[in-house]
């Protein structure tokens, strides 16, 4: 074969984030030194971001073996069966480092990327969610990041025409230099539209669809996502990727038409590692090879070298594999939707991926080796020391607290206050599916033309997970399950996004493994399959690791949908208030009370048993069909949950027989039910705690506060900080 670059002109593998051992691994595969373009391909494909080299060993712990799972982890998105030929596709992804470099574009391109993972499967994306972490809002820089990320999600999601139905956000010091931006998307499709990424059929052609390839993210946005940050790194960073939702919208419509008309054999989105990744994955996972001609790639800048073209992370591109007979028709569809398309490759028996440029071979590697032969590390893990001290301390709660005083402070917290400042920037109504909008425990979407509905909740709890990664992680699964259950849905499938610090730190690795264990165990307890996810390591800046931050997205499913699903604003004078689920167990570790009132973080979150979890979740799902208001008790405890119902319904209540501390206790797996009558049809533990009526949140002996005052504090928590 011809070589274009002499070995002495090879870029240093270490500059591309590759260790000497990994480099040797490449040499072993090829039996020679890699060419420049080859090294470029291996360096991105073997980055932490693309290869999951530190996490893969542990992800096998997740189970996806329920009968309704159609596609589990490994494809672009997980797919589950909703009956009658309907399927749902879901996926979550992080865009943390790019959003720190440029919040608007980082978040916007994150949205674009997750959508491509969904429509690559043949599904029409119908909704988006996000999970965000920032430093405290009293810092101008954190406000700038928060504002930019929210408007980036809005700017892209709204324009591309996919509604954003919610999300969650936390603020804590450890995220100041490393905010988290996770985005999740849901799509629906009919079974015969499902498309996978493995190519078949020697002689089929690969067509690159969508945006022109430019120097976006060269030097590797994936490498950026695979290394810790240091102050002053700015100059080394790759180009900011600029999102183009208009291009993506056209790409969605064009691809869906291609699937509808059965014109493609396989398809793969171009995300991290661009053409290298897409070509090697479609060929490699089909056990085949591909000849790729870089001269045929439509470029934005004409003077790009082969390595740059292969590594470019330009957005809004897809690679479709089609039979030669269909090639002309596919190009015609692209033309009709006004997107560019070029045939760049041909499927071969392989197993090599052979890359040509200027008529010469610039790369010739076993296609599957880029993905399959990536290194795997079982990194050392060790329980970190901070836990001894944390567990030894005990959050202190005043027995005779004034609930009104505490509530005034809690309702003003940006993580508890009203999120309308965020959700009103997102189109959350498009497609006329939104039955329960953002601002409730979960959002609920109907599927028009059926009696089916889907509920989604995203949840994370970084501080509790910090105090006990296993219990904290299990609890976010239970919380998300209860969140979808109170809309009438049954927890059906989960995706997870594991945001952690530097995996080379044994304490971080321990947090990670514990967290995986907690999520996996909780999902098994509820028979919920894990159908996909994402791992984001190296969330470390200047040597400080973020709080361990697993985030889950729970899909709930119901059929039929309740005729009048419970809402927070349906409480009326004269209704009875019930507390359903576990009794308060004095659970104040990482509670809002301890964090905000005491300014402390310590103790050990209490454990949950699987039987209780199942029972309480089932009780909520059942009650949802006949109860006007159901609301999960989480951050801020019973008091905050009740306050939200009162504020949204515009009516007060009187509570009796709940002690001050119990009002703020955060014991999981509890919810409130508000309904007429003096019986609650459930066999889960429950007791009556009060009635709806009056103008005050009246906690009896623990104090009272006017609904209007509480509403005012709660509604202004974000606006007063942001405006």
């Amino acid at each position, binding site marked *: 074969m011809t070589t274009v670059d002499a070995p002495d002109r090879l870029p240093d593998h270490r500059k591309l984030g590759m260790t000497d051992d990994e480099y040797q691994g490449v040499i072993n595969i090829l039996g020679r030194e890699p060419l420049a373009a080859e090294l470029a391909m291996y360096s991105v494909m073997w980055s932490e971001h693309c290869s999951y080299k530190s996490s893969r060993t542990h992800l096998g712990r997740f189970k996806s073996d329920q009968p309704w799972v159609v596609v589990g982890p490994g494809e672009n998105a997980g797919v589950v069966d909703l009956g009658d030929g309907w399927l749902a596709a879901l996926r979550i992804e992080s865009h943390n480092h790019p959003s720190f470099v440029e919040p608007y574009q980082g978040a916007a391109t994150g949205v674009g990327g997750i959508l491509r993972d969904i429509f690559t499967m043949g599904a029409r994306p119908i909704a988006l969610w996000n999970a965000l972490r920032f430093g405290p809002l009293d810092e101008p820089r954190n406000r700038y990041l928060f504002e930019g990320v929210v*408007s980036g999600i*809005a*700017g892209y999601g*709204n*324009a591309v*025409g996919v509604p954003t139905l919610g999300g969650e956000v936390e603020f804590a010091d450890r995220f100041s230099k490393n905010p988290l931006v996770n985005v999740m998307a849901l799509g629906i499709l009919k079974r015969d539209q499902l498309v996978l990424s493995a190519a078949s059929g020697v002689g089929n052609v690969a067509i690159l669809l969508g945006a022109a390839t430019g120097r976006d993210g060269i030097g590797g946005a994936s490498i950026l996502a695979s290394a810790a940050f240091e102050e002053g790194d700015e100059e080394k960073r790759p180009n900011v990727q600029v999102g*183009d*939702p*208009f*291009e993506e*919208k*056209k790409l969605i419509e064009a691809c869906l038409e291609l699937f509808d008309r059965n014109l493609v054999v396989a398809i793969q989105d171009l995300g991290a590692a661009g053409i290298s990744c897409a070509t090697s994955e479609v060929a490699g996972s089909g056990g085949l090879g591909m000849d790729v001609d870089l001269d045929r790639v439509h470029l934005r800048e004409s003077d790009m070298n082969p390595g740059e073209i292969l590594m470019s992370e330009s957005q809004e591109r897809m690679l479709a594999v089609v039979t030669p007979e269909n090639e002309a028709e596919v190009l015609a569809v692209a033309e009709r*939707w*006004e997107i560019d398309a070029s045939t760049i490759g041909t499927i071969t028996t392989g197993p090599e991926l052979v890359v040509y440029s200027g008529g010469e071979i610039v790369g010739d590697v076993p296609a599957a080796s880029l993905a399959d032969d990536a290194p795997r590390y079982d990194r050392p893990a060790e329980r970190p020391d901070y836990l001894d001290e944390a567990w030894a301390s005990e959050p202190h709660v005043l027995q005779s607290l004034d609930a009104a005083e505490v509530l005034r402070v809690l309702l003003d917290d940006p993580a508890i206050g009203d999120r*309308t400042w965020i*959700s*009103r*920037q*997102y*189109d*959350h*109504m*498009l*497609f*006329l599916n*939104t*039955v329960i*909008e953002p601002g409730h425990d979960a959002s609920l979407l*109907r599927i*028009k033309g059926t009696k089916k509905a889907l509920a989604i909740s995203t949840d994370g709890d970084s501080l509790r997970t910090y105090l006990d990664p296993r219990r904290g992680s299990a609890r976010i699964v239970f919380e998300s399950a209860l969140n979808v259950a109170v809309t009438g849905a049954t927890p059906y499938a989960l995706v997870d996004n594991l945001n952690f610090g530097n995996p080379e730190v044994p304490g971080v690795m321990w947090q990670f493994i514990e967290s995986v264990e907690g999520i996996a165990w909780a999902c098994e307890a509820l028979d919920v399959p894990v159908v996909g996810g994402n791992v984001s390591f190296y969330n470390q800046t200047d040597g400080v690791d973020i709080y361990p931050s697993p985030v889950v997205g729970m899909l709930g499913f119901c059929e039929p949908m309740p005729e009048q699903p419970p809402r927070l604003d349906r409480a009326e004078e004269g209704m009875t208030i019930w507390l359903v689920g576990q009794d308060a167990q004095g659970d104040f570790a990482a509670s809002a009370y301890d964090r905000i009132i005491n300014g402390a973080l310590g103790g050990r979150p209490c454990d949950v048993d699987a039987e209780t979890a199942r029972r309480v979740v089932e009780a909520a799902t059942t009650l949802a069909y006949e109860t006007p208001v159901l609301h999960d008790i989480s951050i801020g405890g019973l008091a905050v949950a009740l306050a939200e119902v009162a504020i949204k319904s515009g009516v007060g209540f009187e509570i009796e027989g709940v002690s001050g501390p119990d009002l703020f206790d955060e014991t999981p797996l509890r919810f409130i039910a508000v309904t007429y009558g003096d019986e609650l049809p459930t066999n889960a533990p429950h007791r009556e705690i009060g009635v709806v009526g009056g103008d005050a949140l009246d906690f009896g002996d623990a104090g009272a506060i006017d609904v209007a005052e509480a509403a005012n504090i709660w509604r202004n928590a974000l606006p007063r900080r942001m405006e």
Partner: protein
Amino acid sequence: MTIAVVVFPGTNCEHDIVHALELAGADTEMVWHRDTDLRGADGIVLPGGFAHGDYLRTGAIARFSPIMDDVVTLATEGTPTIGICNGFQILCEAGLLPGGLVANRDLKFICEPVHIRVESTDSVLTRAAEVGQVLRIPLNSYEGNYVADNIQRIEAEGDVILRYSGSGGEVDDGTNPNGSTNSIAGITNAARNVAGFMPHPERASEAILGSTDGMVLIESFLASAELARA
């Protein structure tokens, strides 16, 4: 009777408006912007979305789409024509309605139900409503702030058909969500057959979505199309 729903690249509310029109009993046909013929539709809808990404200026590029010649011809001949949100912006750019739309006062996208007060029933959009009636309909836009250099004339001639208001119909700065001049949410042309407005009636077309207040506008439009056909 057939209602043509024009689809530009970047339009995204076409299926939603079709859903609402069909709930009200209409037959609809989606027409791609590269087509040149509306086939004598009885009414025309330019739906919401982001035609051409809203790049350059919202509505600016869409107005030159091939289909727009026939939209202008039919609208000028009297065919009931409405533009919702992005469709309103396109009608302004095309010169079928006066004025234009610029960024919201607080430079934020706004998606929320707002109250609008019916100012005039002399339009294809409001004929079945009552003057002073207050509707609760979602707004969903970044560029919903109406401006015009001939605002006095527009007001004097009664071209304003919808204004942002409070739930009791009060119109003031506090009930103006986006800074729109004189709280204008919708206007009509001199012939009263073309109307443009920012809120999305299709999003208030079923009780399960939270409101059915949009249906009076949709029904007005369909009644106008029926009349124009007769």
